[in-house]
């Protein structure tokens, strides 16, 4: 290569992006935190967060929620000292009734939740004790070793296998307002994605709850898993040891002063480990349920930002660097 040629090439290089890259001189933006910027950022955060917080708080307050613990009330007084034997004794009737008074107008749909506390659905042994493949493909799927100790009974596979399905919640509730039965919609309570893709349409319960030790609810062997919505809801394991699960929806408004009588079958055993059972009626909005925390958090973060902004502004005005 001749001298001039390489010179020209070098000159060409200087302008090329690659040259700038190798010389670490790519065009770059170097933001520097100047007081005006910082103060603006804090004000901005404050001015966004406080209104959002207030808005969230209002949303939370607009949710009407009635909650009632029933696991103790429903135990007949003679069994109060030995609740475990009560729940295990099949001869004792388990029905029980609760009375809900509506203090605020509740607009339909009103969601019915059952709430369990001190129930570790996220326990490692529990979480793993399921077979998603089997739920989708049925009992022909054999890789269900995770389901132990509830993998098979009497040398036949259990469908659905595993602890989670075995411990299916089986209290039932009926709601009466005045004289009339409130209609409870128990469909569409599980995720559509679960029903469509996760639980098999041709998978039927098999050999379920046939052992010596019954954990919870039984399943109708003629209904495919994809339609067993209580199971699907139950199988979505909760994140925290105290959780709600959707039971159904009341699709009528409840007025102030209405009394709702809940007839329930108190079948599910939480007594042996000190768990609590609650029944919850709640309206819903964009926020979900009643929860003031996030609103308060927003207001707090927003107002502290504003404080910091004001402090910085004063400091900046007093001593400009």
């Amino acid at each position, binding site marked *: 290569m001749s001298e001039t040629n390489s010179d020209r090439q070098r000159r060409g290089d200087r302008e090329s992006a690659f040259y700038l890259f*190798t*010389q*670490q001189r*790519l*065009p*770059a*933006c*170097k933001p*520097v*935190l100047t*007081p005006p910027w*910082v103060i603006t950022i804090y004000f901005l955060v404050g001015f966004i*967060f406080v209104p959002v917080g207030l808005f*969230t708080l209002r949303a939370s307050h607009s949710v009407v929620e009635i909650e009632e613990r029933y696991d103790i009330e429903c135990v007949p007084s003679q069994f109060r000292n030995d609740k475990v034997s009560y729940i295990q004794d099949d001869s004792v009737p388990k029905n029980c009734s609760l009375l809900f008074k509506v203090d605020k107008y509740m607009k339909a749909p009103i969601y019915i*939740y059952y*709430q369990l506390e001190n*129930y*570790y659905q*996220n*326990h*490692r*042994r*529990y979480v793993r004790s*399921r077979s*998603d*493949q089997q739920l*989708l493909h049925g009992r022909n799927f054999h890789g269900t070793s995770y389901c*132990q*100790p*509830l993998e098979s*009974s*009497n040398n036949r596979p259990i469908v659905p296998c595993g*602890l989670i399905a*075995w*411990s299916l919640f089986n209290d039932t509730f009926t709601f009466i307002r005045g004289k009339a039965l409130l209609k409870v919609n128990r469909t569409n309570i599980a*995720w559509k*994605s679960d029903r469509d*893709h*996760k639980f098999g349409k041709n998978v039927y319960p098999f050999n379920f709850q046939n052992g*010596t030790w019954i954990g*919870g609810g039984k399943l109708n062997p003629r209904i495919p898993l994809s339609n067993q919505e209580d199971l699907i809801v139950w199988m979505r*394991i*909760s*994140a*925290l040891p105290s*959780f*709600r699960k959707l039971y159904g929806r009341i699709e009528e408004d409840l007025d102030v002063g209405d009394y709702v009588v809940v007839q329930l079958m108190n079948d599910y055993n939480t007594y*042996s*480990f000190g768990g609590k059972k609650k029944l919850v009626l709640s309206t819903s909005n*964009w*926020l*979900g349920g009643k*929860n003031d*925390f*996030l609103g308060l*958090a*927003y207001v707090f*973060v927003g107002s502290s930002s504003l404080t*910091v902004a004001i402090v910085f502004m004063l*400091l900046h005005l007093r001593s400009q660097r």
Partner: protein
Amino acid sequence: MDSKTPVENLYSIEPALSSSSRRSNFSAHSKSVGRSSIREVSFSDLGPKPVKYGSRGAESETYNMSQKEINDEDARLVQINDPVKTNERFEFAGNSIRTGKYSVLTFLPRNLFEQFHRVAYIYFLVIAVLNQLPQLAVFGRFASILPLAIVLLVTAVKDAYEDYRRHRADKIENNRLASVLVNHEFQQKKWKDIQVGEIIKIHANETIPCDIVLLSTCDPTGVAYVQTINLDGESNLKTRYAKQETLLKIPEKENVSGLIKCEKPNRNIYGFQANMEVDGKRVSLGPSNIILRGCELKNTTWAIGVAVYAGRETKAMLNNSGAPSKRSRLETHMNLEIIFLSLFLTALCTVVSVCAAVWLRRHRDELDYLPFYRRKDFYEEEEDNYNYYGWGLEIVFTFLMSVIVFQIMIPISLYISMELVRVGQAYFMIRDTQMYDEPSDSRFQCRALNINEDLGQIKYVFSDKTGTLTENKMEFQCASVWGVDYNSGKGSSQDQKDGYFVEVDGKILRPKMVVKTDPELLQFARSGKDTKEGSHVHDFFLALAACNTIVPLIVDTPDPTLKLIDYQGESPDEQALVYAAAAYGYMLIERTSGHIVIDIQGERQRFNVLGLHEFDSDRKRMSVILGLPNKSVKVFVKGADTTMFGVTDRSLNTSIIRATEAHLHSYSSIGLRTLVIGMRELSTSEFEEWHSAFEVASNALMGRARLLRKVATNIESNLRILGASGIEDKLQEGVPEAIESLRTAGIKVWVLTGDKQETAISIGYSSKLLTSKMTQIIVNRNSKESCRKSLEDAIIMSKKLTTMSGNTNDTGRTLGASLTPVALIIDGTSLVYILDCELEEMLFELACNCSVVLCCRVAPLQKAGIVALVKKRTSDMTLAIGDGANDVSMIQMADVGVGISGQEGRQAVMASDFAMGQFRFLVTLLLVHGHWNYQRMGYMILYNFYKNAVFVLVLFWYVLFTCFTLSTAINEWSSVLYSVIYTSVPTIVVGILDKDLNRRTLLKYPQLYGAGHREECYNKRLFWITMIDTVWQSAVIFFIPLLAYGGSTIDASSIGDLWTLAVVILVNLHLAMDVICWNWITHAAIWGSIVATVICVIIIDAIPSLVGYWAIFQIARTGLFWLCLLSIIVAALIPRFVVKVLYQFYTPCDVQIAREAEKFQPRSESAAVEVEMNPILNQPRP
């Protein structure tokens, strides 16, 4: 343009010299005065006759060793021309080489074996293995080995590619052809088939296929010239000799046989000892009789030798090892913090297992009935515990499982990221055009890949002088002949444009380099030796042309009538002198072992070389005994003034001696390197006496070097001083500015040189190392006691000077600048008494008070000793920079070694961690790249600690809500991908590309380098602040969703997705907040990572067989999700932001101020604005 990719540059295997071989022979390479030559010559009479050559006289040790009997067990016996008998027991390697590490079969096991040498991988592996135990299976099989598999795969692919290239190179090498003697004729044979014992013939410009002992060459005296550029990078020719016993044998015609007994293969390329039995005679062989594989035969039509070492046993192959590995300061600090982190990890695991123990104990009666525990398996005939191993074991399992879950608390990926970042940083350093040396076409080289960030914390720079501060292109400047100073600065005559030339057969012969000539001196030189001055001048230039070991090479030029003479030699000083002599009409035309031909003013004259005493570091002079055409015999000596005046005849013309001494003083005070030339005419009796002594000495079996030195000392006496020469060693471009920048940056520059004191001081002045403001303390003593005394005085004096000025300026901010600077000048003789004894302590104390230290007349090992002196006593980083073999020990001793790839071969480069073309690049290297690298790496380490700890803590908080059973809401795949995909790229990109300040600012305010000295970017305080911030951020990430979703229908997968996204977005925004320089790559990396994470989460949640199927879509549909995300990010970052802002406004560091100045001052103005910097820490850290 160099087409090599950086990776190629970094990993290419060069024939690096091993440390053992580098250590070998510094004494022989002392370069202050001419280099040693290789031979010693003796003649039985005046005519050229077959001569004997010994090994190098100067290497007395090597020589003595070779005289020792080599034990048969330690020896290799080579039957000349009988490879079968030689290798009867098949113990010698064949000549085929394999530099490739693996074959197809062994690749997998060997590569894995090598990869698992790293602790990080072992940790990975142990965790993965633990996870395979059914009781401990936290992650799925596949997920748990994925990260390890990715890392192993990437490394394996890289290794395989490199190995493939090596195999390819080997194949080419093995199939080259050489002529080998088979059945009395030379046949072409592939290199790989050559065997030890075979006789090989090599023609001009061919490469030597294996290590051979020379038997004969085309030259009647048995000289062969070789170029060793492939071996040590030195381009000048070296001479090798065949023994006279074998010289006349013609292998094709007669049966050559004999036995060579040589040492076992070793990697010392400068040493060889053996003896050879030929025709019943026993001759000893030395390093000058062997040609090593990889050298090229030059200037010699053919050479015949016998293979002694082949293939992997050749010295070149034995030296095929990489650069030494060092560990950076930052990494050492980091390892301490890693220990903290592992303690923290242990603490977390202990908390979990203790809580689990308590929980299990409290619920021990319920375990069978808990629906979420179900200890007993009732379905079997016998009620069995299912997956329950008793309280104690359950706790152990809990502990181990928590180690598996929290494993990334120890940021193993950091080690891999750091390696990648260093490769990236090295790439930019290599590509930097400001560190590209155009004249020599040499780029910056990164030879050590793991100490990039140390460049940002250098406190001491030890520099060689010759070739490092100066160009080492010697130029003859002036001469003092017979007491008259001829300074060519006076002006130049007209006809010297093309310099001197001679015409031979119509062809013009001209020296390659043109030297400025002094017209007056030229006049005398031309006038012939009739006048008195003329005869002195004649002798002077004759001495210059003859008294050396230069080999003239005649080079063709495109112009057929013009030929150039290129003087090849090992010493640049000698080259300069010979070129000078040629310019004055004394052109060395030919040099063989027996005679030299010098063209004197157009008339060719032949001089017989009767003897040559080569240079050694004790005598510091060399001499040659010439038989002149007029049958007189003269000895010419040139050497250092210190030793030359000791052997002159002082009774003769003292005035001339005095004048010469005065001239020498003035030469050296303007920075010239001086040599004194002396001469004596020998009477016949003197010559005979010398000759017989020389014969005896060179045939002696024991202590030959000592005897030869004695002979030399005897003959080099009562000399007549002919004159002295002054050679300029030009300062490299930009050296004064570079030294000033380094000094402003708070780096102490020590110059260690072999030059004499006056030269060193004058170079010190011209390089601005010394200034007139400085007080000089000079220590040059000859005994331990006087050294102690002068050190004591010097300490008192330096203290007085520094404290005195310190008191007067106590209030001022400019304390650092106002001290009276003290310069310490110390010489090698004093150092002999000071180093390695209790005086070291005093010297160190003294040196700390001085802002400049100049050591002159130091030997190579003393250089290392001085570096060690500082390194042992401070924790400050040291850097040594040098270019020659004599700097190797110092380069290896220092924390960072920098080699200048200059004139003097490549030994220094081979030993160095970084290599560059010019001294001034050191400023860019340290102030710019060092600063950047340090800042980037420091931040990257902290950030990696933070990002892994945040994730682990989020997992930990959740564990507290799951009966301490190590459940994770975050999907296992996300846990695995977190450090692989979600967060790895931005930190690497920022680690390579972020710039806290631009180059211009860093060079303009060298004080900014102090950030590294003060450890501003990585220290304990920052670590703990980061860790506190980590705890806060993880708590925000975890508890905001926990409280917002408390008691709702939220399922584990959905909230897990929220946590995953929150962590990833937060750590990336955290990084974004700290990035200083945003270019499009940074943008792409940070925002791209977030997008990639979202995509990964979506993909994971679209797999129906996983628990979290469709969770992200369900949760992202709710407003609560987005509100949580927003509040997490803002609330988590606010404290950090407040602290950052307060810190920047109220206690800004220099870097911060400079950054704002860079941003807000218009370019034109910024030159005028002075930014005030922190005073430089002057005291060393203990």
